[in-house]
């Protein structure tokens, strides 16, 4: 049986490995090995393996979390900017109002839609890139 503390450790370790871009197969293997060791010894996982972040670094030492955070930042910017332009554009079209700086609302719809499409393509590219590394 996996107790709550072990479950928490495994969850934290999975996240740490995912952030460091470890392949899914390797993540499953590392988690299972921790679980197996704890089942055999009854030891505390934090005591035996150290912090999940530090332990993850041993398996993915060269992978960096930079790529993950760039994806998060780019997603937030593209999604927020795209949604704002799209909504303002639609409201402008319906209400026959110009956007800030006198921009025609149709351009807001086009630009907003383009940014949302770019965001979707970014997510697909990130998923394909991750799958290619596994």
């Amino acid at each position, binding site marked *: 049986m996996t107790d709550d503390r072990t479950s928490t450790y495994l969850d934290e370790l999975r996240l740490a490995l995912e952030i460091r871009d470890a392949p899914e197969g390797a993540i499953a293997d590392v988690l299972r090995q921790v679980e197996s060791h704890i089942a055999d010894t009854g030891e505390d996982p934090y005591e035996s*393996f150290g912090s999940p972040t530090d332990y993850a670094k041993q398996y993915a030492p060269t992978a960096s979390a930079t790529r993950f955070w760039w994806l998060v930042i780019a997603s937030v910017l593209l999604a927020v900017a795209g949604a704002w332009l799209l909504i303002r554009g639609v409201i402008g079209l319906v209400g026959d109002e110009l956007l800030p700086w006198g921009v025609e609302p149709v351009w807001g719809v086009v630009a907003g839609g383009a940014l949302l499409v770019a965001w979707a393509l970014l997510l697909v590219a990130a998923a394909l890139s991750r799958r290619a590394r596994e």
Partner: protein
Amino acid sequence: MDVDSWPSEWLRGVLGPAVLAIVSQGETYGYLIAQRLEEGGMGRVKGGTLYPLLARYEAAGYLTSAWHEGDGGPGRKFFTITDQGREQLEIIRHSWEEFSRRAGAIIHTVKERHD
């Protein structure tokens, strides 16, 4: 000397060869390797040290592994030494013996000069 108090820098050097030697005796898994190390006087080696070492040896081609299913549990990952691992172990054994002899000679010589 307390077997749990070996300097960590000593253990870092000896742990790899010791693990390879233990696995060379037959298919085994992490917890048993840790037990053998403790019985051999190396102290308690934590999982956080042992498993990454096993993974590195596996990546280097010295070991292979296979999961054996457990009864309702996560199972155990068994390790087996490869021919390449045995060759490496022989190289390590030879050079370790030489290193140990030279280091011992220096340490004891210095001690004797002070006595």
